[in-house]
């Protein structure tokens, strides 16, 4: 199976990428294999939610506020105050909330998944599971990845709501905007596909965060230090991938879906 390994610059990186993709495909296939690990799934959802909800809420309020403040002063200068609400909603829902969600899913959820799987790997629990005829991908990785996706979806909704409320509060209360204009402009610029792309992004980010965390967790360098390094790497790799994917998705979306006001 392991044929003589070619060594040219970047070969290792290519190999790792290939394996990461292979794990992604394995997870996709194992998702539909019976029996589905319901209990593990629920436990993981609960766990990931519990480590991410509070930080997400705390991050999204100032995030919404910053966007509202920035846009508020900008729109005032160009005399388009009536669009403040719509612009901040667009910015929050399309960009800010999937990114905030991704950062927290990767930073809080993914690192926990990676550390958990990594310590199981070096304690040979994963090997033991394979030997007992149970696939760790189906048993452990699938529930975690699905949980990361689901929680990502929910968190994204939460960030949107909290962020918009924060924006409203800052715009109306702090900057003296009119509530009516803020709300009215909602429907002027924002449209339903904005929400869809936001949720699709969150789903995809949850998937990537879960897969990368699981991959690094299942293949750590030997020893406890290996697990620490793996967690570190998994967070960094996830961030890189997420921002890249976010860019690509945004570009595609802006091409495909026509803006409401042109």
């Amino acid at each position, binding site marked *: 199976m392991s044929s003589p390994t070619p060594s040219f610059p970047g070969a290792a990186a290519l190999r790792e990428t290939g394996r990461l993709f292979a794990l992604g495909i394995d997870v996709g296939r194992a998702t539909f294999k019976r029996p589905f690990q319901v209990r593990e799934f629920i436990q993981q959802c609960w766990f990931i939610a519990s480590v991410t909800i509070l930080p997400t809420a705390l991050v999204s309020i100032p995030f919404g506020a910053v966007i509202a403040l920035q846009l508020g002063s900008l729109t005032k200068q160009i005399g388009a105050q009536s669009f403040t609400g719509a612009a901040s909603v667009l910015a929050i829902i399309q960009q800010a909330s999937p990114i905030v969600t991704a950062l927290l899913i990767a930073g809080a959820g993914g690192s926990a998944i990676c550390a958990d799987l990594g*310590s199981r790997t070096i304690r040979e629990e994963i090997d033991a599971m*394979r*030997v007992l005829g149970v696939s760790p991908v189906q048993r452990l990785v699938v529930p975690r990845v699905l949980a990361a996706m689901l929680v990502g979806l929910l968190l994204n909704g939460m960030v949107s709501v909290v962020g918009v409320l924060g924006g409203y509060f800052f715009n109306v209360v702090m900057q003296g905007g009119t509530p009516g204009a803020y709300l009215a402009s909602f429907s002027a610029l924002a449209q339903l596909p904005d929400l869809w792309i936001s949720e699709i992004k969150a789903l995809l980010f949850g998937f990537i965060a879960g897969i990368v965390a699981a991959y690094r967790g299942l293949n750590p360098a030997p020893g406890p230090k290996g697990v620490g390094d793996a967690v570190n790497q998994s967070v960094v790799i996830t961030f890189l991938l997420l921002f890249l994917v976010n860019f690509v998705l945004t570009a595609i979306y802006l091409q495909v879906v026509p803006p409401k006001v042109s």
Partner: protein
Amino acid sequence: MGVEVVVEGLSKSFGSQAIWRDVSLTLPAGEISVLLGPSGTGKSVFLKSLVGLLTPERGKILINGVDLCRCSESKLYEIRKLFGVLFQDGALFGSMNLFDNVAFPLREHTRKTEAEIRRIVLEKMEMVELVGAERKLPGEISGGMRKRAGLARALVLDPEIILCDEPDSGLDPVRTANLSQLLIDLNAQIDATILIVTHNITVARTVPDNLGMLFRRELVMFGPREMLLTSDNPVVVQFINGRRVGPIGMSEEKDQAAVAAELAGHQSGPPDEDVRGIVPQLEPTPGLPRRQGALRRKDRVMRDLHALPAAARQGVLDSLTDEDRARYGMLAGVGAPVAPAAQPVSAVVPEWQPRHGHLPAPPGAAGPDPSDQRPVRRRGRWRFGRGGGNQRGGRSA
């Protein structure tokens, strides 16, 4: 009956570090084999290769005609169900208590009710003397207890091939003796093929049918126990006697100069005694059937007797009982077999089966007379009750 494991020309390396090269051996069906070797020679790596956790670069591992190194993932999972593996550190699931750990394979692979699972698990826990610790987490028990729990988990599905990585390390001498007896009894009852990796010389001398030794990236020797126990190979002699002087050094690769200096000069340390030589093998606890593996092995060894070194040959002949001598057509006291057992083994075996058939007597039912009570009860705790005997049927479900 157990399954034969054939290893042909296996080589494994990690990056540029070769672990072992060109290892060929056969674990005969239903026999117990022991693999010895200094620390770090890749015994654990060998066991992991046997279950397909590591993929050797070259060679074959044949089980039921399937090459483990080259079969599909799903086939591999299928074949792994034949195995019970005890890892060096027990490899228990840290998030489950001992009961759930031992019950895990049953819950995954059978459709047993909780009551049945409970009965089987408690039986195995009793077998390894862990009753009362079921609710503890692996982090809360001693290393020896983890090891025994790992063994209970490995045995819970009545595997056909049992691999044990240092089952005796971390165990006290009494438990090690119990463990040796347990493995022998287990083999007598389910006729599983067993491979034990160990550093314990007593286990190596009394338990196995076959002995092997890994050293310096090679399989130095593998064959009937008599062969290694009487060997003149300096590595084997040093290892079995636990001597400091010899080819095995701290760094595993002693250089020639150091070896020469040792041989020429100082002999420090406690006086050395030679513990080589063949000691009788452990027998199953009275009341259990005879080990079919041992009988098959005897036939095999007698057939290939001429291929063994003289000392080993003498050892084999000395260990024969009068019954054996009659069977192999030898006159008592005369050296070579007159009519070697050239007849097919299957034709011979029936006469060797115990009169009461295959089924093991239920524990306690075959109890000896009361005067014998105490020691037997001790061993009885380790006895392998075949209570969940119909598990294999449920496994495919």
